């Protein structure tokens, strides 16, 4: 393998740890699906694990829901965010043409993210924290059902993750905005550009028409997407941090025997605030980052400039504005949420994503179509799989984000399977695989060792993800609730089919990991995590001998 540079090495480190978190999240998913099929199925295994858990023996329900609380943290903040950090810490400096602004923050981000994730995971595994990631008030501070200490520990882990994401976003912005390059952008200029204010002012004739327009003259489209998506990232991290601090304050007060009144916080106001922030991930940065990566990768892979480049920059801006106003689709079953908010924010503004993603996918597919004949590289195949995932998951999302249809879909398996897991597994994960198939040869100057494993990886992964989502989505359409344990064999057929889908995804991931390790070499993969000075000493020692 070619001598790796500083940035290349960090990107690979983030990628490897991210993939390990994907494997952990997948394993958790299989365990939970097994319990969903038969709640007692894991009793022997849990009996062994209980020997390392302190305190009373937990019930199967406590084990199931505490795993469910940790699962999205591992999947989203462990796998997806580590992959994003690794990719963006390479691509942003590469496209801006300068190094990362604060290099010391890169290893700090690399350390803090897994630490935060593992603290949250430990709060579930050891402490039975089971308030789920949605943290509906006042469940996380109801210590008759959620263990007090585990609630405090989980919030500390979550706070570390959120602070780390803020540091990451700060470093990205600083890299783009730093002055030591030919393109210099002020912070406010960047923000004005991100929200399209200077374009609007120009259009209204109220600003100097010669003023720099960062959208069209300055930044590559990928960086526009990273910039706009990162605004959502910052808001998400900030809002979740405030919720975490609130829960932490209640936890510490209870810990010191001065409990606070949970009803002092209005549950509906809290829910609006929390979902406004949380949705910045699902309906903000995921969509915008994805669009940016498609816009970067597809032209590179097919050797043709992006179709409709000027329009897509506007589309990204609209996506940012849309993401600020869609959160009410999570509150369509709340009768106290005003009807006008359900209709406007929950339904109509949410449909804004239909337009932005519709145009994004159209631009991406047109670029490929106009570049025919194209070589179906591994990265391009997975890009197409991710587009398919966004179409499938997005359609399911629009059906449930509807004041009428939500009545029978809200909180069913439809929401979490056909919408959320299709997004995460078929769409986002396929995109991460596409990025890795493109980046690994770029970083290491080596082609993948077993190209014959790419198609099995693609088809087994996608078939598994679709089977998993479709089976549970159909169960949801029959009334199967999420976060509910059914007894007596109800819905077992759907659960069994989803379990097969989960196993298929596991096989697909193993094929990919085998290919990555064979390409890089097991020693090199392990060597990524050995500090450079130790490796230099290792190499120098035989010479001295």
């Amino acid at each position, binding site marked *: 393998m070619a001598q790796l540079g500083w940035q290349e090495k960090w990107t690979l480190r983030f990628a490897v740890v991210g993939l390990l978190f994907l494997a952990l999240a997948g394993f958790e998913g299989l365990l939970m699906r097994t319990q969903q099929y038969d709640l007692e199925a894991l009793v022997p295994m849990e009996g062994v694990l209980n020997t390392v858990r302190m305190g009373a023996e937990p019930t199967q329900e406590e084990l199931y829901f505490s795993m469910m609380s940790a699962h999205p943290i591992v999947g989203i903040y462990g796998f997806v965010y580590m992959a994003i950090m690794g990719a963006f810490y390479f691509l942003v400096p590469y496209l801006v043409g300068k190094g990362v602004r604060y290099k010391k923050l890169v290893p700090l981000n690399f350390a803090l993210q897994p630490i935060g994730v593992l603290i949250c995971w430990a709060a579930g595994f050891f402490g039975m924290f089971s308030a789920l990631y949605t943290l509906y008030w006042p469940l996380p501070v109801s210590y008759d059902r959620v263990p007090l200490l585990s609630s405090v520990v989980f919030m500390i882990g979550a706070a570390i993750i959120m602070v780390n994401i803020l540091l990451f976003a700060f470093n990205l912005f600083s890299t783009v905005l730093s002055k030591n390059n030919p393109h210099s952008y002020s912070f406010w200029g960047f923000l004005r550009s991100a929200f399209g204010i200077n374009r609007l002012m120009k259009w209204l004739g109220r600003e100097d028409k010669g003023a720099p327009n960062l959208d069209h003259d300055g930044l590559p489209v990928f960086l526009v997407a990273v910039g706009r998506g990162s605004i959502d990232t910052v808001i998400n991290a900030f809002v979740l941090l405030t919720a975490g601090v609130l829960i932490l304050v209640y936890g510490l007060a209870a810990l010191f025997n001065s409990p606070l009144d949970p009803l002092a916080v209005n549950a509906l106001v809290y829910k609006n605030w929390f979902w406004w922030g949380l949705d910045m991930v699902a309906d903000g940065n995921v969509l915008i980052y994805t669009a940016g990566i498609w816009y970067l990768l597809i032209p590179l892979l097919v050797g043709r400039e992006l179709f409709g480049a000027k329009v897509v920059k506007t589309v990204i801006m609209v996506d940012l504005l849309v993401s600020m106003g869609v959160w009410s689709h999570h509150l369509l079953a709340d009768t106290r949420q005003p009807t006008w908010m359900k209709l406007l924010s929950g339904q109509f503004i949410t449909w804004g994503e239909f337009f932005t993603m519709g145009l994004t996918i159209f631009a991406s597919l047109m670029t490929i179509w106009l570049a025919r004949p194209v070589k179906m590289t591994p990265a391009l195949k997975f890009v197409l799989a991710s587009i398919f995932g966004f179409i499938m998951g997005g359609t399911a999302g629009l059906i449930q984000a509807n004041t009428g249809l939500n009545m029978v879909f809200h909180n069913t398996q439809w929401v979490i399977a056909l919408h959320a897991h299709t997004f995460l597994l078929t769409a986002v994960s396929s995109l991460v695989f596409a990025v890795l198939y493109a980046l690994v040869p770029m970083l290491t100057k080596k082609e993948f060792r077993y190209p014959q494993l790419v198609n099995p990886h693609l088809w087994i992964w996608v078939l598994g993800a679709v089977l998993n989502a479709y089976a549970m989505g159909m169960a949801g359409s029959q*009334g199967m609730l999420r976060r509910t344990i059914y007894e007596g064999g109800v819905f077992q057929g759907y659960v069994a089919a989803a379990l097969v889908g989960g196993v298929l995804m596991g096989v697909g991931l193993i094929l990919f990991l085998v290919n990555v390790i064979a390409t890089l070499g097991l020693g090199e993969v392990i060597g990524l995590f050995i500090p450079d000075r130790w490796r230099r000493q290792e190499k120098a020692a035989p010479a001295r001998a």
Partner: protein
Amino acid sequence: MDKEERRWLFVLIAVFLVFNAFTLSPLIPWQGWLLWSRPEPSQRFAIHAEDYRFELPPGGIEFGAGEYVEFVATSGDVTYGFGAFRPDGTLVFQMQVLPGMENRMIWRFDEPGSYDVRSTEYSGPRHSEMYVPGAIRVIP
């Protein structure tokens, strides 16, 4: 914007208009009374949820098919859900039950029979226990 993009945008607009017009109309039956007619209910039923249990009205929940009735749900501790299910497990309607406020839903059952009640929102590890078979009886 290119010609192809404009055409595609028109397709998207058409799908948006057709889908939303359909789902906001009384063609989705409950939209008729939830969004448009707002009828006066003939009966009100108070449901209280606390400590993983539903407290239903002492006389039970019984009314005639085709009547508009109102369910008023409250919670004494955490957020729950109140969902009515057919015997085959499919959902009829649901609402979130937030603590510290009255959560109201007007509904009309057209099919006589008995319906189950289940909490549709996670409220802690014992949440799945909140299941009351045959809690709602709709008479012809």
